């Protein structure tokens, strides 16, 4: 079909349409349109407002309330855990204090016991030392007396060998003076 023939046909068609009113302004169907509009619109309105919208609203509210309840529960559990944490810290501090107390007292007890034992041992040692010292000094004194006697005897004997007559008292005196200078 050529373009011209096509346009001619279209023109003839639209020329024919001019006699009929534009469909949107054709009053033939106004009553029918309004009637069915009323039926479907009112039907849709009741279906939505009576059934569908309340259901949707119910779901949304239920979700909102369950989220709120969950958040409340979470906050409650959080508080609980914070409190438990606090209690734990308090008990931990108490336990620490008690442990320190126990160790301190044990230390003090050990120290006093140590001091006692040391004191006793020291005293014993001192006593033993003293005794030993007195014995030593006595032994020494005895030894020294013996030394003097031996020296006097030896000196007397030596002098007698030399053929010098000396009194025993003078020998003793001379020996003791030599011993004293040492």
């Amino acid at each position, binding site marked *: *079909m*050529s*373009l011209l023939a*096509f*346009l001619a*046909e*279209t023109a003839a*068609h*639209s020329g024919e*349409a001019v006699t009929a009113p*534009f*469909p*949107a*302004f*054709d009053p*033939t*169907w*106004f*009553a*029918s*349109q*309004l*009637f*069915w*509009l009323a039926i*479907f*619109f009112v*039907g*849709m*309105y009741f*279906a*939505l*407002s009576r*059934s*569908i*919208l309340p*259901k*949707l*609203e*119910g*779901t*949304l509210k*239920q*979700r909102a309330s*369950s989220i709120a309840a969950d958040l409340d529960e979470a906050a409650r559990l959080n508080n609980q855990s914070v409190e438990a944490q606090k209690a734990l810290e308090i008990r931990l501090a108490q336990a620490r204090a008690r442990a320190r107390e126990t160790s301190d007292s044990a230390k003090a007890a050990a120290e006093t016991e140590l001091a006692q034992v040391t004191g006793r041992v020291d005293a014993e040692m001192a006593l033993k030392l003293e005794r030993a010292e007195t014995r030593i000094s006595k032994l020494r004194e005895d030894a020294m007396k013996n030394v003097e006697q031996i020296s006097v005897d030896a000196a007397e004997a030596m002098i007698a060998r030399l053929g010098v007559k000396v009194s025993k008292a003078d020998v003793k005196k001379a020996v003791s003076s030599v011993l004293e200078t040492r």
Partner: protein
Amino acid sequence: MNLPLPVFLPSIATDPIHQFKIFPLIDWSAGGYNLAFTNSSFWMLVSTVLVLGFLGMAASRGSLIPNRIQSLGEMSYTFISDMVRSTAGEEGLKFFPFVFTLFFFILGANIVGMFPYAFTTTSHIAVTGALAVVVILIVVGYGIYKNGLGFFGLFAPHGVPLPVMFFLVPIEIISFLARPITLGMRLFANMLAGHIMLKLLAIFVVMLAGAGLTAVAWVPYVLLIPITALEFLVAFLQAYVFALLTCVYLKDAIHPHH
């Protein structure tokens, strides 16, 4: 009962106005009125069933953890209820089911109309005008019920000097009277113009290709794609605008003194 749709294909293909023609599917008249079940009624039924089917499925699950369709339904609910609350206030929520129905009725009709061979019920002034009149009647009725004669304070804003009132009051009255007309006309004109534009472009494709100008026929063909997308946007936007303006007018009914 008329013949099935494909019989009308030849004239559908060449006439941009044909898509708006109403023809009876089941003849019926009552009380002297022609109340035939027409193609318009049929597609209105289709969009109503689709909308109720979608929202019914979304609502029936009622699970705390929503799936996709339930999530969509709940988003629709909060979208419209937020719009009503922010525009008309808490008291406006009384009209929430009405606004919700309006939005989805118009959206359903507009979207269904986007499918080939379907009929766009909102491209007829009788339908959009009737919806607009219902809105205005509810606004006026509730305004007078709620505020008594105080509702007419809407036409006389506070703090305006008397001489200015003589000009202002008639202007306010005219603008109020224009509301149902503009409300109905906006939706009607948008749907009508959009569908005529789509049709004209499609006819150009057929004509040019039929005349052997295939290379040129690509131009309107490609152009059709973004314009179809635009028309889907318009379908949503016009439903939204209609519902939003309804909320604005309801606010006037609830609080006439602005």
